[in-house]
């Protein structure tokens, strides 16, 4: 089945949210920024439903939820607390921890994978961006 047919539902949601959709016959690529974290989550839910356990290796989805520097982000770890580190990297010393569900301030996302944040105690440091979700 053609990729565009198989992932029709995902592509439709992507297009409505101005996510760029391209494909080379082998891999469908979705790239862009959506207005909210819930839209991003919905896209991942659809992807997972259409391709259980992500077995087909035929999609790349790099979709981010819009977030502004100075705005609030929620810690979305599964259960553990999120490390706040001195620099962008797991080799950097831990300077603080944020609780799961805690809402902290985004200072800068100049590094795509590691965002600079300030926690409720005023501690500043870097967190892995995948564990932070913008709060609307």
């Amino acid at each position: 089945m053609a990729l565009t047919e198989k992932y029709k539902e995902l592509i439709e949601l992507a297009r409505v949210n101005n996510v760029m959709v391209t494909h080379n016959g082998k891999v469908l690529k979705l790239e862009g920024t959506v207005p909210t974290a819930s839209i991003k989550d919905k896209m991942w839910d659809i992807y997972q439903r259409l391709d259980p356990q992500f077995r087909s290796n035929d999609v790349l989805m790099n979709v981010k939820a819009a977030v502004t520097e100075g705005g609030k982000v929620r810690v979305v770890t599964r259960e553990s607390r999120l490390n706040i580190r001195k620099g962008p990297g797991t080799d950097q010393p831990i300077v603080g921890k944020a609780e799961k569900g805690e809402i902290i301030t985004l200072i800068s996302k100049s590094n795509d994978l590691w965002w600079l944040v300030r926690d409720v105690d005023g501690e500043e440091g870097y967190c892995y961006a995948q564990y932070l979700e913008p709060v609307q």
Partner: protein
Amino acid sequence: MTAIALILALGMSVVSCKNVKDADVQNAAQEVVMADPALTGVVVTVQEQIATLTGIVEDEAAKMAAESAVAAVENVKSVVNQIQVIPPAPDYTELDAAINAALADALKDHANVTATVQDGVITLNGEIRERDLPTLMEKMNALNPVQIVNNLTVK
């Protein structure tokens, strides 16, 4: 008198035509081609003022550029364009290095997962709990690979 002049003139023109040496035209044409860095793989041969282009270029535009450049060379009557267009293989060295550098951080919370990168393709091996799989996939996708090959055992 006029007839002689005409014969002479004709004779001269025939001689001047024969004076065009294919080797000279070929050298001139090859020189024009060599001036363009995109056309370094192009070879020109000229026979009876017909230039034949062979060799390899990276794109269609270069092939056309070679043809029009040689067509404009003096004493080239026509051009036979036999250039092959072969696009260069993409270079993934930088992308692989960038992904490799970011993998340790991305895999930190997934101790039983290993990942390798080649030509921009991330291959995942090992095992993972089903509930952690979307998190891992999201992290891998954020590294902007060309493809993700998922060989994970899902528990």
